[in-house]
Protein backbone atom coordinates (compact mmCIF):
# COMPACT_ATOMS: atom_id res chain seq x y z
CA UNK A 1 0.00 0.00 0.00
CA UNK A 2 1.10 3.55 -0.62
CA UNK A 3 -0.02 6.87 0.82
CA UNK A 4 0.58 9.81 -1.49
CA UNK A 5 -0.04 13.52 -1.26
CA UNK A 6 0.41 15.78 -4.26
CA UNK A 7 0.21 19.54 -4.24
CA UNK A 8 -1.30 19.61 -0.75
CA UNK A 9 -2.34 23.04 0.47
CA UNK A 10 -3.94 24.12 3.69
CA UNK A 11 -5.21 27.51 4.80
CA UNK A 12 -6.15 27.99 8.45
CA UNK A 13 -7.40 31.20 9.98
CA UNK A 14 -6.71 33.05 6.71
CA UNK A 15 -3.03 32.07 6.78
CA UNK A 16 -1.45 29.65 4.36
CA UNK A 17 0.12 26.90 6.44
CA UNK A 18 1.65 25.05 3.50
CA UNK A 19 1.13 24.81 -0.25
CA UNK A 20 2.33 22.59 -3.06
CA UNK A 21 3.44 19.89 -0.67
CA UNK A 22 4.26 16.47 -2.12
CA UNK A 23 5.07 13.31 -0.26
CA UNK A 24 4.86 9.60 -0.81
CA UNK A 25 5.26 6.83 1.69
CA UNK A 26 4.80 3.13 1.10
CA UNK A 27 4.03 0.12 3.26
CA UNK A 28 6.85 -0.64 5.68
CA UNK A 29 8.19 2.90 5.43
CA UNK A 30 8.34 5.69 7.94
CA UNK A 31 8.06 9.37 7.09
CA UNK A 32 9.58 11.79 9.56
CA UNK A 33 8.11 15.25 9.28
CA UNK A 34 10.55 17.86 10.56
CA UNK A 35 10.74 21.63 10.57
CA UNK A 36 10.62 24.64 12.84
CA UNK A 37 7.73 25.41 15.22
CA UNK A 38 4.59 26.56 13.46
CA UNK A 39 5.67 25.27 10.08
CA UNK A 40 2.67 22.95 9.81
CA UNK A 41 3.85 19.54 11.00
CA UNK A 42 0.84 18.91 13.21
CA UNK A 43 -1.49 20.39 10.62
CA UNK A 44 -0.18 17.99 7.98
CA UNK A 45 -0.82 15.03 10.27
CA UNK A 46 -4.32 16.31 11.04
CA UNK A 47 -4.93 16.75 7.31
CA UNK A 48 -3.98 13.12 6.67
CA UNK A 49 -6.15 12.08 9.63
CA UNK A 50 -9.08 13.89 8.02
CA UNK A 51 -9.49 16.29 10.92
CA UNK A 52 -8.54 19.40 8.94
CA UNK A 53 -9.86 20.00 5.46
CA UNK A 54 -7.46 20.33 2.54
CA UNK A 55 -7.81 23.53 0.55
CA UNK A 56 -5.92 22.11 -2.41
CA UNK A 57 -4.17 19.04 -3.73
CA UNK A 58 -5.00 15.42 -3.41
CA UNK A 59 -4.40 12.72 -0.83
CA UNK A 60 -4.63 9.15 -2.09
CA UNK A 61 -4.15 5.74 -0.57
CA UNK A 62 -3.56 2.92 -3.00
CA UNK A 63 -3.56 -0.73 -2.14
CA UNK A 64 -5.35 -0.28 1.16
CA UNK A 65 -8.75 -1.48 2.19
CA UNK A 66 -10.98 0.02 -0.49
CA UNK A 67 -14.05 -0.05 1.76
CA UNK A 68 -12.62 2.42 4.25
CA UNK A 69 -11.33 5.98 3.97
CA UNK A 70 -7.80 7.02 4.90
CA UNK A 71 -9.27 8.42 8.13
CA UNK A 72 -10.77 5.08 9.08
CA UNK A 73 -7.48 3.27 8.47
CA UNK A 74 -5.39 5.73 10.49
CA UNK A 75 -4.41 5.97 14.11
CA UNK A 76 -3.82 9.52 15.33
CA UNK A 77 -1.64 10.11 18.36
CA UNK A 78 -1.85 13.83 19.05
CA UNK A 79 -0.66 16.08 21.86
CA UNK A 80 -3.78 15.30 23.86
CA UNK A 81 -4.12 11.87 25.38
CA UNK A 82 -7.90 11.39 24.99
CA UNK A 83 -8.19 9.79 28.42
CA UNK A 84 -10.93 10.18 31.01
CA UNK A 85 -9.51 10.60 34.51
CA UNK A 86 -12.49 8.96 36.23
CA UNK A 87 -12.26 5.76 34.18
CA UNK A 88 -9.64 3.14 34.98
CA UNK A 89 -6.69 2.45 32.71
CA UNK A 90 -8.37 -0.72 31.45
CA UNK A 91 -11.73 0.98 30.87
CA UNK A 92 -10.11 3.80 28.89
CA UNK A 93 -8.32 1.38 26.60
CA UNK A 94 -11.29 -0.99 26.23
CA UNK A 95 -13.50 1.94 25.25
CA UNK A 96 -11.21 3.09 22.44
CA UNK A 97 -10.56 -0.47 21.32
CA UNK A 98 -14.29 -1.08 21.01
CA UNK A 99 -15.13 2.33 19.52
CA UNK A 100 -12.31 2.41 16.97
CA UNK A 101 -12.15 -1.31 16.36
CA UNK A 102 -15.87 -1.79 15.87
CA UNK A 103 -16.11 -4.96 17.93
CA UNK A 104 -15.85 -5.91 21.55
CA UNK A 105 -12.12 -6.37 22.18
CA UNK A 106 -10.73 -9.63 23.47
CA UNK A 107 -9.47 -9.40 27.05
CA UNK A 108 -6.10 -10.89 26.05
CA UNK A 109 -5.61 -8.21 23.41
CA UNK A 110 -6.15 -5.45 25.97
CA UNK A 111 -3.84 -7.11 28.48
CA UNK A 112 -1.16 -7.63 25.84
CA UNK A 113 -1.36 -3.99 24.74
CA UNK A 114 -1.09 -2.75 28.33
CA UNK A 115 1.83 -5.06 29.04
CA UNK A 116 3.61 -3.92 25.88
CA UNK A 117 3.62 -0.32 27.13
CA UNK A 118 4.50 -1.32 30.71
CA UNK A 119 1.11 -0.63 32.29
CA UNK A 120 0.10 -4.27 32.73
CA UNK A 121 -0.21 -4.04 36.49
CA UNK A 122 -2.15 -0.76 36.55
CA UNK A 123 -5.28 -1.83 34.64
CA UNK A 124 -7.59 -1.13 37.58
CA UNK A 125 -6.10 2.24 38.54
CA UNK A 126 -8.15 5.33 37.65
CA UNK A 127 -6.36 7.24 34.90
CA UNK A 128 -6.38 10.37 37.08
CA UNK A 129 -3.42 8.93 39.04
CA UNK A 130 -1.19 8.40 36.01
CA UNK A 131 1.86 10.55 35.36
CA UNK A 132 2.25 12.42 32.05
CA UNK A 133 4.50 9.68 30.69
CA UNK A 134 2.14 6.92 31.78
CA UNK A 135 -0.79 8.73 30.13
CA UNK A 136 1.26 8.88 26.95
CA UNK A 137 1.98 5.15 27.17
CA UNK A 138 -1.71 4.41 27.62
CA UNK A 139 -2.43 6.38 24.44
CA UNK A 140 0.22 4.35 22.63
CA UNK A 141 -1.45 1.14 23.85
CA UNK A 142 -4.45 2.22 21.75
CA UNK A 143 -2.36 1.79 18.58
CA UNK A 144 -1.68 -1.81 19.57
CA UNK A 145 -5.17 -2.72 20.74
CA UNK A 146 -6.76 -1.82 17.39
CA UNK A 147 -5.05 -2.75 14.14
CA UNK A 148 -4.93 0.15 11.71
CA UNK A 149 -2.26 0.28 8.98
CA UNK A 150 -1.40 4.00 9.14
CA UNK A 151 0.04 5.53 12.30
CA UNK A 152 0.07 9.33 12.51
CA UNK A 153 2.24 10.31 15.46
CA UNK A 154 2.62 13.89 16.63
CA UNK A 155 5.82 14.15 18.71
CA UNK A 156 5.35 10.58 19.94
CA UNK A 157 8.31 10.63 22.30
CA UNK A 158 7.18 13.69 24.26
CA UNK A 159 7.02 13.03 28.03
CA UNK A 160 8.42 9.51 27.63
CA UNK A 161 11.50 8.36 29.54
CA UNK A 162 14.52 6.86 27.76
CA UNK A 163 13.33 3.30 28.23
CA UNK A 164 9.81 4.02 27.01
CA UNK A 165 11.21 5.85 23.97
CA UNK A 166 13.22 2.76 23.07
CA UNK A 167 10.22 0.48 23.48
CA UNK A 168 8.12 2.87 21.35
CA UNK A 169 10.72 2.73 18.58
CA UNK A 170 10.65 -1.04 18.92
CA UNK A 171 6.85 -1.03 18.51
CA UNK A 172 7.19 1.25 15.48
CA UNK A 173 9.75 -1.10 13.91
CA UNK A 174 7.38 -4.02 14.39
CA UNK A 175 4.53 -2.05 12.86
CA UNK A 176 6.72 -1.25 9.83
CA UNK A 177 7.83 -4.87 9.56
CA UNK A 178 4.18 -5.92 9.30
CA UNK A 179 3.76 -3.58 6.31
CA UNK A 180 2.34 -0.56 8.10
CA UNK A 181 2.94 3.11 7.39
CA UNK A 182 4.15 5.64 9.93
CA UNK A 183 4.13 9.40 9.57
CA UNK A 184 5.64 11.11 12.58
CA UNK A 185 6.23 14.76 13.36
CA UNK A 186 9.40 15.04 15.35
CA UNK A 187 12.20 17.39 16.39
CA UNK A 188 14.99 15.02 17.29
CA UNK A 189 16.27 11.87 15.62
CA UNK A 190 13.88 9.12 16.58
CA UNK A 191 16.15 6.13 16.04
CA UNK A 192 14.36 4.56 13.11
CA UNK A 193 16.78 3.42 10.43
CA UNK A 194 15.99 4.16 6.81
CA UNK A 195 13.18 6.57 7.54
CA UNK A 196 12.47 9.21 4.94
CA UNK A 197 12.49 12.80 5.99
CA UNK A 198 10.07 15.45 4.87
CA UNK A 199 11.44 18.85 5.82
CA UNK A 200 8.74 21.49 5.94
CA UNK A 201 9.47 25.15 5.36
CA UNK A 202 13.06 24.47 4.23
CA UNK A 203 12.74 25.99 0.78
CA UNK A 204 10.31 28.71 1.76
Amino acid at each position, binding site marked *: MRLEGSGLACI*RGGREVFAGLDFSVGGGEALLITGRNGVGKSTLL*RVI*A*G*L*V*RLTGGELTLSGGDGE*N*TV*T*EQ*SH*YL*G*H*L*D*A*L*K*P*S*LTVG*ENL*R*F*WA*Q*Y*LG*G*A*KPAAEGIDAALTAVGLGTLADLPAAYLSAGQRRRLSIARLLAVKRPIWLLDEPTAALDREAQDSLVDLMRRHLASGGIIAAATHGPIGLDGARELRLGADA
Partner: protein
Amino acid sequence: MSPLAAIFVRDLRLAIRVGGGGGIGVLFFLIVVVLMPFAIGPDLALLARIGPAILWLGALLASLLTLDRLFAADHEDGSLDLILMGGTPLELTVAVKALAHWLTTGLPLVIVVPLLGLFMNLDGRASAAVALTLLAGTPALTFIGVIGASLSVALRRGGLLLAVLVLPLTVPVLIFGVSASNAAIIGPLPFGTPFTILCALSLVSLVIGIFAAAAALRHGME
Protein backbone atom coordinates in the same frame (compact mmCIF):
# COMPACT_ATOMS: atom_id res chain seq x y z
CA MET B 1 -23.74 -1.40 17.09
CA SER B 2 -20.61 -2.12 19.04
CA PRO B 3 -18.94 1.32 18.80
CA LEU B 4 -22.21 2.97 19.81
CA ALA B 5 -22.62 0.60 22.76
CA ALA B 6 -19.07 1.50 23.81
CA ILE B 7 -19.73 5.23 23.84
CA PHE B 8 -23.11 4.76 25.54
CA VAL B 9 -21.61 2.75 28.39
CA ARG B 10 -18.68 5.17 28.69
CA ASP B 11 -20.92 8.24 28.94
CA LEU B 12 -23.15 6.58 31.55
CA ARG B 13 -20.07 5.65 33.60
CA LEU B 14 -18.62 9.15 33.33
CA ALA B 15 -21.90 10.72 34.43
CA ILE B 16 -22.24 8.47 37.44
CA ARG B 17 -18.65 8.71 38.70
CA VAL B 18 -17.11 11.52 40.73
CA GLY B 19 -17.13 14.84 38.91
CA GLY B 20 -19.41 13.57 36.17
CA GLY B 21 -22.29 15.84 37.10
CA GLY B 22 -25.02 13.20 36.87
CA GLY B 23 -26.74 14.33 40.06
CA ILE B 24 -26.18 18.07 39.63
CA GLY B 25 -29.32 18.61 37.55
CA VAL B 26 -31.60 16.96 40.11
CA LEU B 27 -30.07 18.95 42.97
CA PHE B 28 -30.50 22.20 41.05
CA PHE B 29 -34.12 21.26 40.24
CA LEU B 30 -34.73 20.54 43.93
CA ILE B 31 -33.30 23.90 45.03
CA VAL B 32 -35.25 25.92 42.47
CA VAL B 33 -38.56 24.28 43.36
CA VAL B 34 -37.98 24.40 47.11
CA LEU B 35 -37.21 28.13 46.96
CA MET B 36 -40.42 28.94 45.10
CA PRO B 37 -42.88 28.63 48.03
CA PHE B 38 -40.61 30.91 50.08
CA ALA B 39 -40.71 33.55 47.36
CA ILE B 40 -44.39 33.24 46.50
CA GLY B 41 -45.78 32.75 50.00
CA PRO B 42 -47.99 30.11 51.59
CA ASP B 43 -50.96 30.60 49.27
CA LEU B 44 -51.82 26.94 48.61
CA ALA B 45 -54.34 27.61 45.83
CA LEU B 46 -51.87 29.85 43.98
CA LEU B 47 -49.05 27.31 44.36
CA ALA B 48 -51.21 24.52 42.96
CA ARG B 49 -52.22 26.72 40.04
CA ILE B 50 -48.68 27.74 39.03
CA GLY B 51 -47.08 24.46 40.20
CA PRO B 52 -46.86 22.76 36.79
CA ALA B 53 -45.29 25.89 35.24
CA ILE B 54 -42.69 26.13 38.05
CA LEU B 55 -41.83 22.45 37.73
CA TRP B 56 -41.45 22.78 33.97
CA LEU B 57 -39.26 25.88 34.27
CA GLY B 58 -37.07 24.18 36.87
CA ALA B 59 -36.72 21.06 34.73
CA LEU B 60 -35.90 23.17 31.65
CA LEU B 61 -33.07 25.01 33.40
CA ALA B 62 -31.81 21.88 35.15
CA SER B 63 -31.64 19.87 31.94
CA LEU B 64 -29.44 22.52 30.29
CA LEU B 65 -27.15 22.83 33.30
CA THR B 66 -24.64 20.11 32.42
CA LEU B 67 -25.29 20.00 28.69
CA ASP B 68 -22.40 22.31 27.79
CA ARG B 69 -19.91 19.62 28.88
CA LEU B 70 -21.40 17.03 26.50
CA PHE B 71 -18.92 17.72 23.68
CA ALA B 72 -16.65 20.33 25.29
CA ALA B 73 -15.14 17.77 27.69
CA ASP B 74 -14.34 15.44 24.79
CA HIS B 75 -12.93 18.34 22.80
CA GLU B 76 -10.59 19.45 25.58
CA ASP B 77 -8.96 16.07 26.13
CA GLY B 78 -8.68 15.17 22.45
CA SER B 79 -11.34 12.45 22.52
CA LEU B 80 -13.47 14.27 19.97
CA ASP B 81 -10.71 13.92 17.32
CA LEU B 82 -10.73 10.16 17.76
CA ILE B 83 -14.53 10.02 17.86
CA LEU B 84 -14.54 11.75 14.47
CA MET B 85 -12.02 9.21 13.15
CA GLY B 86 -14.00 6.21 14.32
CA GLY B 87 -15.84 5.42 11.12
CA THR B 88 -19.18 5.47 12.92
CA PRO B 89 -21.61 8.02 11.43
CA LEU B 90 -21.29 11.12 13.60
CA GLU B 91 -25.07 11.57 13.69
CA LEU B 92 -25.49 8.20 15.44
CA THR B 93 -22.71 8.98 17.90
CA VAL B 94 -24.36 12.32 18.71
CA ALA B 95 -27.73 10.60 19.17
CA VAL B 96 -26.25 8.01 21.53
CA LYS B 97 -24.40 10.64 23.55
CA ALA B 98 -27.61 12.67 23.82
CA LEU B 99 -29.54 9.57 24.90
CA ALA B 100 -26.98 8.79 27.60
CA HIS B 101 -27.17 12.42 28.73
CA TRP B 102 -30.96 12.29 28.90
CA LEU B 103 -30.91 9.05 30.91
CA THR B 104 -28.57 10.57 33.49
CA THR B 105 -30.03 14.10 33.54
CA GLY B 106 -33.57 14.20 32.10
CA LEU B 107 -34.97 10.96 33.47
CA PRO B 108 -33.99 11.66 37.12
CA LEU B 109 -35.89 14.96 36.87
CA VAL B 110 -39.03 13.06 35.84
CA ILE B 111 -38.56 10.61 38.71
CA VAL B 112 -38.32 13.29 41.42
CA VAL B 113 -41.36 15.27 40.19
CA PRO B 114 -43.89 13.39 42.42
CA LEU B 115 -41.78 14.39 45.44
CA LEU B 116 -41.32 18.00 44.38
CA GLY B 117 -45.03 18.24 43.54
CA LEU B 118 -45.68 18.17 47.31
CA PHE B 119 -43.85 21.50 47.67
CA MET B 120 -46.18 22.94 45.05
CA ASN B 121 -49.33 21.54 46.72
CA LEU B 122 -50.03 19.26 43.76
CA ASP B 123 -52.07 16.13 44.45
CA GLY B 124 -51.03 12.73 43.15
CA ARG B 125 -52.93 13.00 39.90
CA ALA B 126 -51.53 16.44 39.09
CA SER B 127 -47.95 15.33 39.86
CA ALA B 128 -48.41 12.30 37.65
CA ALA B 129 -49.62 14.55 34.82
CA VAL B 130 -46.56 16.81 35.14
CA ALA B 131 -44.25 13.80 35.31
CA LEU B 132 -45.84 12.34 32.18
CA THR B 133 -45.48 15.59 30.23
CA LEU B 134 -41.86 15.92 31.38
CA LEU B 135 -41.20 12.35 30.29
CA ALA B 136 -42.45 13.25 26.82
CA GLY B 137 -40.90 16.73 26.73
CA THR B 138 -37.42 16.51 28.30
CA PRO B 139 -36.01 14.53 25.32
CA ALA B 140 -36.90 17.56 23.19
CA LEU B 141 -34.95 19.81 25.58
CA THR B 142 -31.90 17.54 25.37
CA PHE B 143 -31.98 17.18 21.60
CA ILE B 144 -32.41 20.92 21.06
CA GLY B 145 -29.65 21.45 23.60
CA VAL B 146 -27.12 19.28 21.75
CA ILE B 147 -27.22 21.81 18.89
CA GLY B 148 -26.09 24.52 21.29
CA ALA B 149 -23.57 22.16 22.91
CA SER B 150 -21.94 21.38 19.57
CA LEU B 151 -21.89 25.04 18.48
CA SER B 152 -20.20 26.16 21.68
CA VAL B 153 -17.81 23.19 21.80
CA ALA B 154 -14.57 25.14 21.52
CA LEU B 155 -15.53 28.07 23.74
CA ARG B 156 -14.22 28.46 27.26
CA ARG B 157 -17.44 29.85 28.73
CA GLY B 158 -19.68 27.89 26.39
CA GLY B 159 -22.33 27.22 29.01
CA LEU B 160 -23.63 30.78 29.03
CA LEU B 161 -23.74 30.99 25.25
CA LEU B 162 -25.47 27.62 25.18
CA ALA B 163 -28.28 28.88 27.41
CA VAL B 164 -28.76 32.00 25.31
CA LEU B 165 -28.79 29.98 22.09
CA VAL B 166 -31.01 27.17 23.27
CA LEU B 167 -33.59 28.68 25.62
CA PRO B 168 -35.49 30.62 22.91
CA LEU B 169 -35.81 27.41 20.89
CA THR B 170 -37.36 25.60 23.83
CA VAL B 171 -40.31 28.00 24.09
CA PRO B 172 -42.72 25.75 22.12
CA VAL B 173 -41.81 22.77 24.30
CA LEU B 174 -42.46 24.84 27.42
CA ILE B 175 -45.82 26.12 26.14
CA PHE B 176 -47.19 22.72 25.19
CA GLY B 177 -45.67 20.96 28.20
CA VAL B 178 -47.33 23.31 30.66
CA SER B 179 -50.60 23.46 28.76
CA ALA B 180 -50.80 19.66 28.61
CA SER B 181 -50.19 19.49 32.35
CA ASN B 182 -52.85 22.12 33.02
CA ALA B 183 -55.29 20.39 30.69
CA ALA B 184 -54.95 17.22 32.72
CA ILE B 185 -55.26 19.00 36.07
CA ILE B 186 -57.80 21.77 35.51
CA GLY B 187 -59.28 21.23 32.05
CA PRO B 188 -61.40 22.12 30.20
CA LEU B 189 -59.23 21.41 27.15
CA PRO B 190 -58.63 17.76 26.29
CA PHE B 191 -55.23 16.49 27.46
CA GLY B 192 -54.52 14.69 24.20
CA THR B 193 -54.14 17.70 21.92
CA PRO B 194 -51.24 19.55 23.58
CA PHE B 195 -49.68 16.25 24.67
CA THR B 196 -49.58 14.94 21.11
CA ILE B 197 -47.94 18.16 19.93
CA LEU B 198 -45.42 17.83 22.75
CA CYS B 199 -44.55 14.30 21.60
CA ALA B 200 -44.24 15.58 18.03
CA LEU B 201 -41.87 18.33 19.17
CA SER B 202 -39.66 15.70 20.81
CA LEU B 203 -39.56 13.59 17.66
CA VAL B 204 -38.85 16.56 15.38
CA SER B 205 -36.05 17.81 17.64
CA LEU B 206 -34.57 14.31 17.69
CA VAL B 207 -34.22 14.38 13.90
CA ILE B 208 -33.16 18.02 13.53
CA GLY B 209 -30.98 18.08 16.65
CA ILE B 210 -28.66 15.20 15.79
CA PHE B 211 -28.11 16.29 12.18
CA ALA B 212 -27.57 19.93 13.12
CA ALA B 213 -25.23 19.00 15.96
CA ALA B 214 -23.17 16.62 13.79
CA ALA B 215 -22.87 19.30 11.09
CA ALA B 216 -21.81 21.89 13.68
CA LEU B 217 -19.19 19.53 15.13
CA ARG B 218 -17.71 18.76 11.72
CA HIS B 219 -17.55 22.43 10.85
CA GLY B 220 -16.16 23.37 14.24
CA MET B 221 -13.17 21.04 13.90
CA GLU B 222 -11.58 23.25 11.23
